[in-house]
């Protein structure tokens, strides 16, 4: 049994210690907001917070997670919505949405470290992959959540 604290709740899971945290979250705890994209820590769709740090859960062994505090998209901002989620809604960030949980978790980490990130900070921290091209809106939403004024969206000519 491995004791996990996820979104403030304690779970005892009977799994192999080398099972990646991602699959414990998704298939054992049914927290489906965290996504599988590559399995090799390249895309960031599986990013969760472990003791406040962003971690690609597809490569994090659950055996190493005992006693640590794990936060997933389902627990973000509870109760209510985190300011990143509000900014995401406000700026219509997601297209298909598949990568967005990881994207938001990475953005929350960025703001925790750099409350007023520059574009260069965003480029450096936000290495998540999005095939739909939500990047310009991710950038705007991060600036907005940081209280910095975003650029205006496209207008009808």
């Amino acid at each position, binding site marked *: 049994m491995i004791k996990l604290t996820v979104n403030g709740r304690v779970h005892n899971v009977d*799994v192999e210690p080398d*099972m*990646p945290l*991602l699959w414990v979250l*998704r*298939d*054992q705890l*049914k927290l*489906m*907001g965290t*996504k*599988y*994209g*590559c*399995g*090799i820590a*390249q*895309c960031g*769709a599986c990013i969760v917070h472990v003791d406040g740090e962003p971690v690609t859960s597809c490569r994090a062994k659950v055996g190493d997670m005992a006693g640590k505090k794990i936060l*997933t*998209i*389902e627990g973000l901002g509870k109760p*209510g*919505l985190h*300011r990143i*989620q*509000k900014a*995401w*809604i*406000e*700026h*219509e*960030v*997601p*297209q*298909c*949405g*598949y990568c*967005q*949980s990881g994207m*938001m978790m990475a953005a929350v980490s960025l703001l925790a470290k750099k409350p007023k990130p520059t574009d260069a900070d965003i*480029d*450096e921290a*936000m*290495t*998540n*992959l*999005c*095939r*739909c*091209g*939500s*990047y*310009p*809106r991710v950038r705007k939403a991060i600036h907005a959540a940081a209280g910095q004024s975003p650029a*205006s*969206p*496209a207008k*009808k*000519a």
Partner: protein
Amino acid sequence: MTIAIDRRQFLKASAAAGGGLALEFSIPAVAAPAKGIPPKEVNAWVVIHPDDRVVIRIARSEMGQGTLTALAQLVAEELDCDWMRVTTEFASPNEHIRRKRIWGSMSTGGSQGVRSSQDYVRKGGATAREMLVAAAAQQWKVPAAECKAEKGVITHGASRRRVRFGQVADAAAKLEPPKDVKLRDPKDWKIAGKPVRRLDIPDKVMGKPVFAVDVDLPGMLHASIFQSPVFGGKVKSVDASAAEKMRGVKKIVREADFVAVVADNWWRANQAVRALKVEWDEGANGNASDETIMKMLREGLADPKLPEARKVGDAAAAMAGAAKVVEAEYASPYLNHATMEPMTCTAWIKPDGFVEVWTSTQNAEASMAAAAETAGVPLEKVEVHKMMLGGGFGRRGAPQDFVKQGVLIAKQLPGVPVKMMWSREEDMRHGFYRPASLVKMKAGLDAQGNCVAFEARIACPSILALLRPEAIQKGIDFSAVRTLNDMPYTIANQQVDYAMRNGHVPVGFWRAPGLQNAVYRECFIDEVAQAAGKDPLEYRLAMLKPGDKNRLVLEAAAKHAGWGTPLPAGIFRGIAMSDGFGSFTAGVVEVSVNAAGEIKIHRFVMAIDSGYVVNPDTCAAQAEGNAAYCIGMLYQANTVKNGRMVEGNFDTFQIPGMSEMPKVETVLVPTGGFWGGHGEPGALSFMPAVLNAVYAATGKRVRTLPLKPGELKKA
């Protein structure tokens, strides 16, 4: 699927946003359903609850392109309901079959979602409105013409009576639908044409389960699959002795061209499938490689007897008499769609033989047909639950390989729902790839530099030969020749020939099928303009007829981007245009190239005339998406060695990231009178404009993608 955002949460979100609402409406905040009283279907498109909530049925798929919201806007516009009370649900494919395909097409590709259904969905909304008004008028015993619907309320002006939609939905549903309804002039639109907020975003921001990978059913098992590494190969033998002992493993599945393991958790299934020792019969394709494929394409170009995709005037004679001839060869590799959500299908063969499927599909009817055929049951005994797609880009339409596999696996475990999800490696190596191609173009110029002759020879595998052979006409696959055989340029003599050379790599519709030809054409036209000593914009405009909508968008993009005006040092512009998918687009791109030869794309201005615009904000998002999707073409390739695809994951098939994304400015110039798409057209002008800008920056023409390492490095 309905969007159930907590009203309190959203109001807080709006308040936090602080008044600077860029978008016109808030997201509908739907109250808890009234208990006990069922909603009423007024017609196939419109369902109304007694408390006035309106459910709009959506037949097309949502993969992030915003079609779900746009279609709801069109229905709501004609229905005259309160947009804040609108939710949506995907129409049931099984019901669709039973009701004689009442929802029209369920296919979502070719940027068709809005443009090919706008007429009947608007009529659906208008018909429902007239029935609701007629029901109210009957109640009041007044002529319907004296009554009016607005924001979900019907009023009779003279008697000042009013009734809400929810109060007359029941009576309206019993009326005969009007035969003919008048649709609103888009000039008078109140909900359509506005940048309303997308209905699917709140769930996606809260990580709620909406995708095929998120399906979870009681007693469900998980499957991971391993397919023949060589396309067309077969399973010869399987040694499952190690795999079957692994924890959680429930079943080893062996089919003709794949093996799979079913377990109680996907990771366990995937660990076990990797532990299978499989011997493959590679068939005839084990020696295929990039070299053999290029040889095949080159042999195609040399074929003296090719089918003609276009013949205007006498290109050979005009070429012979030309003052100057420009010639170039362009090439592109195979490219995978690489949707972020891998191919996934949950299938459940129920004890009574009914088959339920949950999948991310661009074509629910094709999914149904694949499931029915594989399970050996009639269509009526299949239901396909349409999930949100974690990207589509054409991969989840015509090929329904993943549905067939899901059902084959579930057949081995009757009564048990099984969710089959591909690993990224399977997804990368078993795509239906954008075809590799080789194209040779030739232009003849007169003494003044005018282009008097154009020839193109296209060697390219045929998507239709694999997926829709009945659509091939006289040896021509339109998706392989488009943009080159339908140029708007007024060149008097044109000859385009097509060499269908198919090879063994499965090919499919990849965002903007035929896009490679737009790249070739628009880069080549730049070469021709240069040979003529003309500005690329002026040269194009001189070859476009007055009134041609291509002119309009070219001029709009050029004007917005400041074509011809000075740029900061080190930044260079390129321009391109192409019509496609019902729309006209042109783009101007600004790039810089550093000494190491690395390209930085700074800005993309895209002008588009799609006739009408249903949601300007989602249209802008599609321009951004098209740019992001295409940037990768600079360095992506799915290469072939020993009959199999080499690249297996995002480490070797790289996806563009945040830092590579340019600023995208969308210039919407809808001229009305036709309906064009938005999902793909943006791609057509982006990449050629990038490469033309790269030429402006470096003096080097990139004619073969991807770029070779160091190709643009300063000598």
